[in-house]
């Protein structure tokens, strides 16, 4: 392989990319970047884009609209960045750009040069006129190694990625011997981002030493945790970084075939990655004889049918083989005997996307972030009761407190923090006392949670931990493939017990059974799904035992969440004479008028939907919720009372 030849070929591609970027700049017209990934589209980005187009043509203003991927700021969607160099302002980021705001932006900013300060989230560059986004914790505490280009480039335009430094990692890798490359990854300390944190370098080495033809790389994009969407975002926002990582990995282990496994529920991700493969093949960065070398890589996309368990690597392989997605016993590990019996490396989307920056910038640079045992960054999708939910990439070792309270803005509505669920349904719930735990593979596992693939649900005081555990067990119970006894039957009975407790029918023996059953499921299950399924129960039992006990012994739900254990009543002191709002909204006509023309709730009829509490005007705030339900004073309905 001739290195000079190789770099020369890439240099010509790079020149083309630079020329295109330069031409764009020289046009000197405004550029409107609209976040058009799934989250943006869900909050109306398509309509926003249409509004921009219409307004621009109405006013006859020349501007370029560039659909880009996700920036991770889900709370502010639809997000729009307008780069209007003629005005002298830096590129400005606008939040919640609805159709009306889009028209206004065209009218004011693009036409007249007034940047409409009230919609501004921040400027993308430091300047004297507008506060930069980097002044906000949500931006400056993040450390974007993997998601650096997400939301900044058009995912469908390979040249934008190349102009931003893309594919140079692959070129650098191709100049190395595969052996050196694996050494590089091994020294970088990169650990698998799929959840378990297995060192990526070691996995690659195992596969590279396996003596067999036709090795395969599978990119695991079967993201199924409730509330997690990191992989989707990367696939939609910067597919080329993933493909570059895939190619580097294939070169290192000697594979000539790669499969990107994406859920069919991610149609945009599927479309984007397919388009990216095609355009990369078009410039000989994928396909046969990459950049004129002897290295070839055929990349295809496989759409999964949405079984959670297919995220487990052996089940994923079964599913590609056209079989029922059921996990297999390991060993043999896929690196020895995987898809079609060949050595197979299965790496997560985030792991593979971390590879190009490592190769490009060196291991020292990578180890500069994160901790000794978990270098690099972690990407979380933080959802639940936080002010600024969204995708966050932070350095490993950052504390949970920083992430939740500083980066994501803390708990909204003046509520207090109760727990955080990390690692999806297989992770655990950590209470406030663990807020200073650093986020890395080992610390989280020690605390009883796990890194998982990066889902994080923050819960405030209104969350009942028994109910949360029940929710997650309900999920894993349904998603169990049904192969091994404990996962199939054990989780079902965990759910039965939790159902009983949340219905106020629990007994003290149930607590003991929960514990032993959970331990046995952990011990006896075949795959990771079963082994980790009881984690929400175990951690909530460990940290929130008092809540379980309150449910069982006092018939009380401390968070006032479990329907069977709560009751609504109307405080006659506060209730306004003559107000009929609650009566009108009650779906079961449980609210009646008392003798003093105030309202009361018939507990026998009440279904505890809570509508009355919502509609009661804040100046009265007369509807109260109590647990246990016996605390609600009962008012007898008069025979003629409605």
């Amino acid at each position, binding site marked *: 392989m001739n290195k000079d030849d190789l770099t020369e070929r890439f240099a010509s591609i790079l020149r083309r990319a630079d020329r295109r970027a330069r031409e764009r700049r020289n046009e000197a017209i405004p550029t409107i970047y609209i976040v058009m990934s799934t989250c943006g589209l869900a909050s109306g980005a398509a309509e926003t884009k249409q509004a921009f187009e219409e307004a621009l043509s109405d006013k006859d203003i020349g501007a370029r609209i560039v659909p880009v991927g996700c920036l991770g700021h889900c709370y502010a969607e639809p997000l729009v960045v307008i780069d209007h160099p003629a005005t002298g302002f830096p590129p400005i980021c606008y939040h919640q750009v609805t159709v009306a705001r889009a028209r206004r932006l065209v009218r004011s900013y693009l036409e007249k040069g007034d940047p409409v300060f009230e919609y501004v989230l921040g400027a993308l560059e430091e300047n004297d006129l507008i506060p930069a986004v980097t002044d906000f914790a949500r931006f400056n505490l993040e450390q974007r190694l993997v998601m650096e280009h997400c939301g900044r480039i058009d995912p469908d335009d390979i040249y934008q990625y190349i102009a931003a430094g893309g594919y140079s990692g692959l070129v650098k890798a191709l100049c190395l011997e595969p052996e050196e490359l694996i050494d590089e990854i091994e020294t970088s300390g990169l650990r698998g981002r799929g959840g378990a944190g297995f060192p990526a370098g070691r996995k690659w080495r195992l596969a590279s030493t396996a003596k067999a033809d036709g090795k395969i790389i599978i990119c695991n994009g079967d993201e199924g945790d409730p509330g997690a969407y990191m992989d989707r975002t990367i696939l939609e926002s910067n597919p080329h970084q993933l493909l570059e990582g895939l190619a580097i990995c294939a070169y290192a282990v000697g594979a000539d075939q790669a499969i990107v496994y994406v859920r069919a529920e991610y149609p945009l991700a599927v479309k984007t990655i397919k388009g990216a493969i095609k355009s990369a093949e078009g410039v000989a960065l994928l396909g046969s004889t990459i950049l004129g070398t002897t290295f070839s890589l055929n990349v295809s996309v496989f759409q999964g049918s949405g*079984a959670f368990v297919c995220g487990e690597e052996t089940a994923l392989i079964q599913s590609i083989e056209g079989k*029922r997605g059921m996990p*297999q*016993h390991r060993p043999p590990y896929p690196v020895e005997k995987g898809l079609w019996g060949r050595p197979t490396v299965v790496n997560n989307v985030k792991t593979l996307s971390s590879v190009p920056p490592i190769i490009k910038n060196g291991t020292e640079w990578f180890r500069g972030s994160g901790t000794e045992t978990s270098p690099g960054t972690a990407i979380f999708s933080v959802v639940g009761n936080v002010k600024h939910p969204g995708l966050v990439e932070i350095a490993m070792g950052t504390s949970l407190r920083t992430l939740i309270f500083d980066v994501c803005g803390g708990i909204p509505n003046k509520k207090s923090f109760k727990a955080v669920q990390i690692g999806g349904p297989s992770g655990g719930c950590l209470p406030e006392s663990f807020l200073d735990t650093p986020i890395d593979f080992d610390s989280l596992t020690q605390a009883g949670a796990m890194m998982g693939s990066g889902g994080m649900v923050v819960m405030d005081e209104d969350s009942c931990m028994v109910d949360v555990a029940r929710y997650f067990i309900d999920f894993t*119970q*349904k*998603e*169990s*493939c*049904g*192969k*091994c*006894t*404990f996962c*199939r*039957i*054990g*989780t*079902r*009975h965990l759910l*039965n*017990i939790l159902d*009983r407790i949340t219905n106020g029918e629990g007994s003290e*023996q149930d607590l003991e*059974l929960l514990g032993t*059953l959970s331990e*046995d499921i952990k*011990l*006896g299950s*075949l795959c990771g799904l079963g082994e980790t399924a009881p984690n929400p129960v175990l951690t909530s039992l460990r940290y929130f035992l008092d809540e379980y006990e309150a449910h069982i012994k006092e018939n009380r739900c401390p968070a006032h969440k479990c329907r069977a254990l709560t009751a609504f009543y109307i405080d006659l002191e506060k209730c306004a004479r003559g107000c009929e709002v609650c009566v009108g909204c009650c779906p079961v006509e449980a609210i009646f008028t008392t003798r003093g023309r105030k309202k009361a709730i018939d507990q026998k009829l009440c279904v505890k939907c809570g509508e009355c509490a919502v509609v009661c005007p804040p100046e009265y705030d007369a509807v109260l919720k109590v647990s246990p339900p016996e605390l609600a004073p009962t008012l007898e309905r008069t025979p003629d009372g409605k």
Partner: protein
Amino acid sequence: MPNIVIDDREIEVPAGTKVIDAARQLDIMIPRFCYHVALGSVGACRVCAVKFVEGPFKGVQMSCMIDAKDGMVVSTTDEEAVEFRKYVIECLMLHHPHDCPVCDEGGHCLLQDMTISGGHGIRRYLGSKRTYRDQYLGPLVQHEMNRCIHCYRCSRFYQEFAGYRDLGVMQSANRVFFGRYEDGILESPFTGNLSDICPTGVYTDKPSRFIGRRWDYERSPSLCINCSLGCHTVASARYRQLVRQEARYSEEVNGYFICDRGRYGFFYASHEKRPRRALVEGEEVAYHQAIDTVREKLAQISGSAGPEAIACLSSERSSLETQAMLKRVCQNKNWSGPLFFMEQSLAEKVKTATARLEPGLTVSLRELEQADFILAVGADPINEAPMLALAMRQAQRFGGRVVVIDPRPIFLPFDFQHLPVRLHEVDLYLSLMIKAAVDRETATELGPSAAEFYQTIPTLETAAVPLQEQIATLAQELRGCQRPVIVCGTEVVPQTTPALAADQVLLLKAMDKQTGLFYLMPGANTFGASLLSGDDGSFSTTLESIEKGKIKALIVTERDLFWKYQNKQRLERIIEKLDLLVVLDYVDSETAQKSDVFFPVSSLYEAGGVFINQEGRVQVAPKVYLGGTPIKQNSGGGHPPRVYGVGIPGSEPRPAWQVVVEIGNGELPPDEETAFATTRKWLAEGNPVFANLPPIDQFPDDGVRLGPALDVGSRFSLDWQTERHPKRNSDGLELILVDWTFGTEELSIYSPHLRQVEKEPCLSMHTSDAVRLGLSSGDKVAIRFDGGRVEASLCVAENMASGVIVMPRHRLLEWQKIKELPRIVRFEEIEKVSV
């Protein structure tokens, strides 16, 4: 070879042995539900957990998933492991309906055993049980999903092992369901095995439902005589009725499974219409009276027309004792025969096959599973010997290639390559394939005759153009494989094929391959018949002699003349002509009904017997029960059954060989001795191949394989090219009579259950022929044969040879009107019947 310590005992096992298997070799039975030796391990049930104390794995692990490694120390009795297993059982029982009292599996249920031995008794978890709607799976298997413990054995057997797709896993999590997409009769002919492998009562044996518990039965090992493979079974009888048959493990023959024809083919033994009294001219008489009558009449005929006026006809389904005894009597009395075959060409083919099965070439059914290239010539495994198809499936499943050269529309439950050529081309294509794989030097090494033989094989250009490339590719594969096996049928193939197959196997063997030869034969004891069969005369000459009045008496043992003979009218005339027709049988066949004197004889289950399967394996079936009319039949529902008389009602039938001896005025051996004991020496004198047979009580379980002497002289001596083959007939279709899995076999058709799974008989022809005749699938057609019209519906198939018409010898078709064979059916003889 790793060394492993299990429960303080050390054992050395081959690399790759699972710990659960290593333990079995120490006679330690680790509990299991999902693990099955034939199906392998999946790690679903978790009940085989043991404690790994030392070695690469530590703690409680599944013994079915872990290969034995050096330095492993395993405890099956460790408290933690025992506790864990107990917990698994508890979990499994949470959803089990506890309906053992009404479950047919109760008493031989693995789950029941494990639950009781695990000590589980009290349900600690509340909550409702998961329930399912059961399906109708046909007349053979009863479905009861609520009992399921999800071991996945059924779907693994049905889909992975057997290759059928219509039963499998559906849904997920706690709702996992095993069954079909919708109610319906299971498509596979191996469904009975589901009842055997299910560790609980999800699939139970439907015909024997509610009849008894296993401990109620008289159970004995037995053999299947519904085809030539000789699979091992366990037969169960209750109240003088044979009620159930299960697969019996055999290392060499059938492994763990049997086909449905074998499993449910026993109903003739307790059939309501089974004749149990001796008949003279249709009148029931005492047994000894019938003997006297026959002896008297035979003496008369012998006196007037000479002993050769008495002819004997034996059968392929008779035991070796009966066959041998008939031959002895014939020799003593100078009677004609006995004949063993009604079709002379079949006799020749089988004799060739028997002679050419050299010890080094023969493979057993289990050995065939190891083959990496199977070339089947003139064999239709699913229809002729279903278990052969299952064995071929195993070979295919582990990467072997299966090629079938046959004109019929062959179906196999797996991927295979089919060369649909005409019958007279079968030899050619077999030879072309081998020639393309074997080089001249190799052939020359085998001597001049082999070289000349090789020389006579035409080049590949002789093959039809579309097949040339396929043959070349396959030959290339054949050249690279290590363990090729040629499977050769003996029924439809030309006279020359069995010998040719043997020659071709020798050529392959010369390429340093571990080569095998596997013949299929038409009956359970065809091999025995072939060894005893003499060169004197054929059935057609016998028929002519009867017509000419030279033969006046015919003794037929355990054969229905009408079953496989194509000219019914002629047989009827002949029976008219005979002075005496003596029939010995255990079924009420047409021949039996037309007999002058009839002797009821014992079935296999009452008499036992020695049978030689198609690979020359001599196997013994012991007695299962004493016989007699089933209580259900003779009590007429009365309770208690009142029948007045001496002895067991309906127990008159005796072993056929005894009747034969008595007819021949011979002396019966003393009671405790069997016929085999008395004939063994005589057999050995007649044919040295029998010399080393052990006494009947010392037979190994898998029998003894006979090793016929090497017949070097007949190697490569065949001049098959000059055989006159019918030229392609432009104005007609060559008629091929075939067997089907269900509906064409003489004994299994008495099973009311199998009758329900029979397909409607149909004629098959190639699309091009159908187009020419303006016919399509489903049309009702009639063929005008010399004996009358035969009507059947038509199946048009692409995967068969053109120029042939295939007709099953189905019980519902009057194919015996054909009259003459071979037969070309002219196009004008085929007409569409408007409905």
